[in-house]
Every structure is written in C-alpha cells, then in structure tokens.
C-alpha cells in the first residue's frame, strides 16, 4: 500500500471516532453556575456535560417558553448511517488508490459537512425562536421583537444572564484531521503524477 493510500484509508476511518467522541459542545456560563452547565453533541445523542445539565437547562429555558432539548432528533438516525457509509467508501477508495476518488470523497465530505452545519444552525434557530405563547417571561430585543435564545453556531454570545459558548469537540477535530489526511493523499498522488510526466 502506498503512503497516499494509507492516508486515505486511515483518514476516512477517522470518521468513526465520531461514535466515541463528541462532535460539538454548548456551554452556558452564569454567576449562579460557577461550574457552568452544558451539553456535548454526538452524532447520535445529546449528553450532559455534568450530571443533570440538560434537565437543568430545560428547567431554566422553560421560563422563557423554550421547548425541552429533545432526546431524539431525526439527525441522530441519519448522521450515523452517513458517517459509516462515508468511512466505508473512503476506506475502499484507499484500497483502490485512485487520486480522483480521493478528491471526490473529500469534496463530498465538504458538501455533507456543510449540510450538517446548516442543519445544526437550523436546529439551533428553531430551538432559540420557537417560544410558547404562554411563556412566563417574555423579553424583547432592542427592536421590540421577541427575544431569540438561539445559541451561536461557533464562538460565544451573551443570552440574558448566560454566556453561551459553542465550540467543536474532539470528534470534530479528528474528523478534520481525517479529512486533511485524505486531501494530503490526493496532493501526494498529484505530485507523484507530475513527477512521472
């Protein structure tokens, strides 16, 4: 197996680390929560950062009319199949060892990743904007519109008394590393080709 093939093979299989490590994390900081509360987002579940965090986020958010963070969302069914599929295809492409396949896989991953991020954004938007009419506390923003409680896609943002921080986690980083390896595989192959010609 050539070096590029190995990179392609290992790089695509690194996607599977998403089953072990969280993809993303949202943390809420406030003076009353010196230890902060938050949740890790995996490709198939939401997990308390510390025990009961999601329950406690739900309790606080219900005052402004937000829905509970669901236990199950359709993405949790779709994402795992996509990840397994892409990892398997990538590994096979690694065996085949054609640079066009490498770049094709990488491109598809970029597209899928973008769709994933867009989907995540839309979920956050829905979560932050879908407020019950009966909410006990109704805040408005500077324009007099109902306040939104949408957490940031990436980075941090003040939402009332909470600082919401949204950042990738180890699963995402390993996926990026894996994708970079497949890109590197393509580049190496391309160099080899240019040497030969």
């Amino acid at each position: 197996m050539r070096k590029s093939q190995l990179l392609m093979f290992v790089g695509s299989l690194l996607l599977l680390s998403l089953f072990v490590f969280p993809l993303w994390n949202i943390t809420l900081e406030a003076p009353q929560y010196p230890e902060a509360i938050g949740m890790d987002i995996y490709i198939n579940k939401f997990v308390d950062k510390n025990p009961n965090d999601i329950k406690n986020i739900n309790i606080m958010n219900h005052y402004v009319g937000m829905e509970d963070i669901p236990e199950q969302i359709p993405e949790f069914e779709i994402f795992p199949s996509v990840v397994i599929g892409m990892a398997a295809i990538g590994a096979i492409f690694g065996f085949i060892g054609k640079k066009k396949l490498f770049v094709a896989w990488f491109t598809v991953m970029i597209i899928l990743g973008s769709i994933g991020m867009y989907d995540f954004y839309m979920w956050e938007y829905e979560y932050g904007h879908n407020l019950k009419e009966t909410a006990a506390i109704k805040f408005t923003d500077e324009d007099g519109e109902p306040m939104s409680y949408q957490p940031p896609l990436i980075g941090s943002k003040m939402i009332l008394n909470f600082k919401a921080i949204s950042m990738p986690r180890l699963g995402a980083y390993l996926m990026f590393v894996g994708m970079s390896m497949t890109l590197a595989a393509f580049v190496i192959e391309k160099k080899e080709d240019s040497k030969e010609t």
Partner: protein
Amino acid sequence: MKIMTTLGFSALLLFAISCGQSNSNDNGGALGGNLADRSYVAPGEHDEFYGFISGGFSGQLAVYGLPSGRLFKVIPVYSVDAEKAYGFNEETKPMLNTSFGEIPWDDSHHPDLSQTNGEIDGRWCFINANNTPRIARISLSTFETEEIIELPNSAGNHSSSFVTENTEYIVAGTRFSVPIPQRDMPIDEYKGNFKGAISFIKVDQESGRFDLSFQLKMPGFDYDLAHPGRGPSHGWMFFSTYNTEESNTLMEVNASQNDKDYIAAINWKKAEELIANGDFETVPSEYAHNVWDESTQMATSTIKKEVKMIDASKYPGLVYFLPTPKSPHGCDVDPTGEYIIGSGKLSASMTAHSFTKMIDAIENEKFDGDAYGIPILNYDDVVAGVVKQAGLGPLHTEFDGRGNGYTTFFISSEVVKWKVGTWEVLDRAPTYYSVGHLMIPGGNSQKPYGKYLVALNKITKDRYLPTGPELAQSAQLYDISGDKMELLLDFPTVGEPHYAAGAPADLIKPNQMKLYQLEENNHPYAVKSEKDTKVTRNGNEVHIYMTTIRSHFAPDNIEGIQVGDEVFWHVTNLEQDYDVPHGISMIGAQTSELLIMPGQTETFKWFPKRVGVWPFYCTDFCSALHQEMQGYIRVSPKGSSVPLKWSLDGE
C-alpha cells in the same frame, strides 16, 4: 543638666523598648500584617479550616469557618429544628426517640472527629447528649445527623464523646453514678451502692454504624472528661474523676475534700479480651438506637433490651487509678501519647502523668492501696512533671504539634502556653471571659494543625452589642503560629460552646454531597415524575404524593379532603441541581415547614379542621417564579361526596 539628659535618654530608650515590644506582639505571627487581615477571608474565598463547635444547651452542633468565624450551618442533633423540619417531619421524628419516649431537647457538649492512625480523617463528627445520655454521629459528607444511640445505666453523659485512634470506639463515661440497674433505694445509701458506667460504642468503619459493644461498671465516682491513648498508649482510655468521696449532697463542698482524686486508666484491649472470653454479665437495660437510612431517607428507632457489662472491680489488669490533685477536670493526652495531663480545677497547677512510668508502676506493682479492688498507683511513680502555678483553675489542654501545650484557666480567665517535657510556662493570653474548653484543629490527635486556637468562653459581659439580659455566647480566635499567642477575633456562637473540633477544609470539602440522586431515592412514598403524582384515601387516612420543581407543585389543586382526615403530604423535590431546595407548608398546619433538598422526599402530617379552600406555598425562595409556586387544597365537611381529585394545570 547632665542628669536631665540621661533621664530623658532613658525615657526615650524605655519608650523605644516598649514600642518594640508592642510591634513584636502585633507582628509575631507567621503571617505578620495587621490583625484584621489575618482573620479576614475575602468575599468568595473559603476559610482554611472547618470548626465544629458544640451548641451546648441548644443541643445542636454549629459549623464555622476559621479564621473568619463565619457561621455556616447549625446541624440539628438533639433538639428539634423547625427550620429544617428536624424532629417535625415523619422521617426524622424517630431520631429523637429514647427509652423515655421522644425528647425534643438536650445539652450537647463534646464534638470529636473520626480518626485513622491517630489523625483526623474527615469522615464523621460525634457529639454527646449530656442530659439524657446519647451519642450522635454526623456525616461530614451531608452534614446531617445519621445516628443516635442512647446509653443505658449512664446519667449525665459528660465524659464523652471521645474517639479512639482508629475510630474503633466512641467512649462515653457517666458524670453521675447511679444504681445499676436502676432501682428504688434511699439516696443516702449512695456510697458503695451507686456505680458509674463507661460505655464503649463500636463504629463500623464502612457505614459508621454504632453498636453498644459493652459497658464497664466502675466505682461510684463522677467521671468527668476523657481522652484516648495514642501511639504507644493506644489501647488505653483515660478518664478524670471527681467525687471519689462518693458524696451525694452539697457536692461543691463534700466532693472537694480529697486532696487527690483519680485519673482512671482503662485498658480497653483487655476489656475486649474479657468480652471475647465471656467474662461479662448481661444486664437488662433499655435503650434506643436511632438510625437514619440515606436510601429510604427515613430514620428508624429500635429499642434494645440488654447490654454486656464488665465489673471493673473483678478483673485485674483492666483499670488502674492514677492519683491526681484537686478534682481534675480536663484529661488530655499529648500527641506522642506519652503524657496524660490532669487539670486539677481547684488548683493552680496541672499534673502530667507519664505513660511509660505508669506501665512500669503496673509491672512492678507500685500500688498505694486500692479502691473497690482497683489498684491505685503510687503518685510519685507515675508523675512526669507538674506545670506549676500556671494560673487559677486549669480546665482543658490542647496541643500544637510543636511540643507545646495550651491550657485554659477558668478562674484567671486566660490561656497559658507551656512546654511539654520541661513543664515551663512560655506565654499567657487573657480571654474574655472565663474560658472553658479550647480547640486547636487536630489538637487532640497525633497530628495537630497548630496555626489557630479557639477559646470557648463561658461569660460574655461587654464584648458585643448588648441584647438584653441574655447575651451572645462567645468564642475567640488566637494565632498561635508564633512564639506569642495573639488574639485575632471574637465571634459569637450558638448556645454555650463547650468543646469543639476543627479540621483543615481540604479534608472535608472534597467529600461534600451536592444533592441526593433521584434514582437512588428509595423513600416508600417518593414519586420520581409528575405523571406518578397522586392522592390516595384509606378511611380517613389520606396520602398526597406530591412533587416540586421550579416553579410549581404537582398537583397544585387538590379536592376531596374532609375535616377529620389525617393527611400525609409526601413531597419529593425533583430538582437535580446544586443548591435548589424547595420548602412547603400550609396554613394552619400544626407542625414545621418541610425543607427538601434536591432528590429528597419529606413528609408532614396535617389534620384539616375547617371547611374551606386553603393555600400552601413554597417557603424557600427557589427561582424567579418562586412567588407563583403555590397551590390550593379544598376541605369539605366530613362525609362529603366531593370526590378525591388532583391536578396541575387542569391535567
């Protein structure tokens, strides 16, 4: 002129010297700086030590931070506490049960901390009830009273609760000797007929659970205070005694006639052997044993019927008496385990007995007679030294781990620092006023943390803003890290402080429980989700299974209750977040509120007496919508046809 100059110069010199002295007094501690800085703990910062200070006649145990002197919690132990529903809710009522029935009060004196290898280990705090003899165990993870055991045959449980080197036993001696077993007899036949019981309570090392292992039947003296041997003297327990005259009236005179009373040295390893050999009698004795079960969140009280008793007079090698002058009060053992300090409270001196010399005297039978068959060791053969004329009325001694002892003097109102071994007085500091006990964190263990000393005073007088005839009780904090003791802080205490115990915060803080796990709540009336809440009726007995979560009760509308019912409110706090308790009470309930920690279930009983619609509400400001956390209960006439109904938001 020359003379004038010289005088002037001398005056200047004196001034300089006195300034120098006052400076060294102010800055003598390890930290230096001004006094306020050294007891100041900035907002948001934590104290370096926990202080557990007995609540005296409040019956409780107060938890302070040191050096700030800030009060954190009053742990209810022997007295009911309406704030925490202790002794009021159905779960904790059994904790205050005794063989005499439920008792709402006691007088708590001497907290002591669990030890491992002679060092405090941060697991449990123990404290005695003096009036109706009991010993309690308090968890240092939950800061709740988990167990109380009554001590039969004991009366005035003063020389307790003292913990042996590995928390094998909590040892508890009786202040009053009484007929054993109790019987109807003339008081003036005291002498020779009344006996003193000393109890050994075994502690399970995992659960902390008590077992009254055995009692020693001792001569009819008053057993005042005690401390265990440690290191080489491990396996021995030392008790000060007074009234070896065995008087039963006008004790202030008649119990002060003997020049020397005794320190009783008890070889409890020998006692264990006697028990193993069956050398005991089983004495019928009723006593209550009350245990809190964290899983079911309920206390149960069991009345036990008998105790194993060893007659100390019958078994050689079990007990020896060390003559000690002037009605000794404090009985303290230095960190090396070699010296046993008896503070003759009617004298100006303390007597230090040597454990090595004691063993030698026993082996060579250097006896000076006996008392009821118990050998009295020859005074001169056991005394290691005397701290002479140190003050008036010595009471208690603690140690700093640097070879110094610190003794309180009640009459001369001071703490005196002296050198162990040379018995010379090194320093003295006044107390305000009339100090009783003192405490150095770990100061009665093999590993004292000799930075601070807390003096626990009996009289306050003018030290604080006056509050009518009844004044605050007072403690004082001294820095003892330097050569000179320095008074840093006065702080008021809850009830009269007797003894106290202290521990580094790092020993206790990491083990703190933050909340009760809801899934581990096995209370028989717990409900774990709102959909399981209900109201049931069996005759006139009604059970409400209710939950709380920010910011509502479920159910919050209840109908179908009738006058004459006996209604149990079982309220589960569904919260699983740190520091989110909910409270509940309702109008006309003849009991306390409930204060329910996250994951906990508590129950109060209510007897509806009047027809109407009556409110209940959350008593602990839980959230922004706390004021909305309320509900109604409809009470109908007896025999009414209004059906039992409960709901939250119509569901």
